[in-house]
């Protein structure tokens, strides 16, 4: 029956990765994108652990007495330890950036923030933004923000 457990978890790992990645791609809310990233990472970590799972084996810790027992692969576990800690560091940095974006542009909507960034960059460079054109190739064309943009400037 242990074999089936691995299969069920595998479905879970794929599901978590897909939900996370799709969330990152579909959402326009800065904070929710960070949350979706955490979900996607959990899925990837689970898949990595599954890559070293043996259904007939014990945890990779030597206990005095029974040292001959088969053990699951310790290498993916070490990799996932590394990946989890990396993930939390990146998450903290992402949230710092979200806080700053919110302070500067008073929004948590990626499309609004991006539009304001483009305008600011165009202004700093001294070119009038080409309103009529779509974004350059290789970029997701972005629909016009539906929400009315409140007056610029910091919110709080």
């Amino acid at each position, binding site marked *: 029956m*242990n*074999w089936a457990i*691995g*299969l069920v978890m*595998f479905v879970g790992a*794929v*599901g978590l*990765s*897909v*939900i996370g*990645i*799709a969330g990152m*791609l*579909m959402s326009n809310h800065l904070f929710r994108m960070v949350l979706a990233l955490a979900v996607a990472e959990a899925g990837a970590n689970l*898949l990595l652990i*599954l*890559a*070293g*799972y*043996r*259904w*007939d084996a014990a*945890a*990779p*810790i*030597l*206990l*005095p007495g029974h*040292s001959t027992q088969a*053990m699951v*692969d*310790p*290498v993916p*576990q*070490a*990799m996932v*330890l*590394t990946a*989890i*800690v*990396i993930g*939390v*560091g*990146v998450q*903290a*940095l992402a*949230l*710092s*950036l979200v*806080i*700053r974006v919110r*302070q*500067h542009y008073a929004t948590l909507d990626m499309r609004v923030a991006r539009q304001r960034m483009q305008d600011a960059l165009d202004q700093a460079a001294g070119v009038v933004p080409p309103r009529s054109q779509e974004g350059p190739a290789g970029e997701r064309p972005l629909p016009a923000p539906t929400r009315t943009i409140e007056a610029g400037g*910091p*919110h*709080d």
Partner: protein
Amino acid sequence: MRNIATLLLLGGLSFLLLVITGGLLFGNPPMLIGQGIQQAAPTEVGAANIVTAVVLGYRGLDTLGELSILFAAATAGGLVLGSTRGRSGRPGGFILRTGVDLLFPLMLVAGLYVVMHGHLTPGGGFQGGVILAAAFFLPLLARPQESLDHTWLSVIEALAGSAFIALGLAALFEGRAFLTPLFDHGVLGALVSSGSLPLLYLAVGLKVGAELASLLVRLSADDEGAS
């Protein structure tokens, strides 16, 4: 419309991933290096917890890289959020403050215990480091006016990271490769065993703790006037 697109994307992605990963060897991995490590680790490293042997021994450089990533994230966070000014908010009630005061030494001991037994039982520098960071951060939640001394945090940060590198360099000076475990292995399963691994985990624990504590303090600080 948008929901339909989302559903299509979700379905397409999961179908793709399931097709890609279908037919993999489940529950019976090839374990080419895993098998070798399991056989060699008790004699080569001497840690009862083989994951620790991998994290600090076989893949010690990854761990150094990981510490550096946390450090980079904290440094970049400092660059983004600037120096902390202060924290406002009412101090917590009597029960909260007393509870935190009681909890602090307990969490300190628990964190250090988890760090120091990483080579024997599940746990180690990362988990213990997080507990240590929480131990130092919780009092700040109870007493918002007080602040953690940033100088000390950055000194611990710098010295713990350097200690990890210094332990690696010591092997280099002895004519062995970088990060080769030092000292005797000792008795498998004893507290003082597996050479320099407990020292490495202590450095990891302090570094992770200091790094995360400074990140938490920075995120909980008030905005010093929107710029």
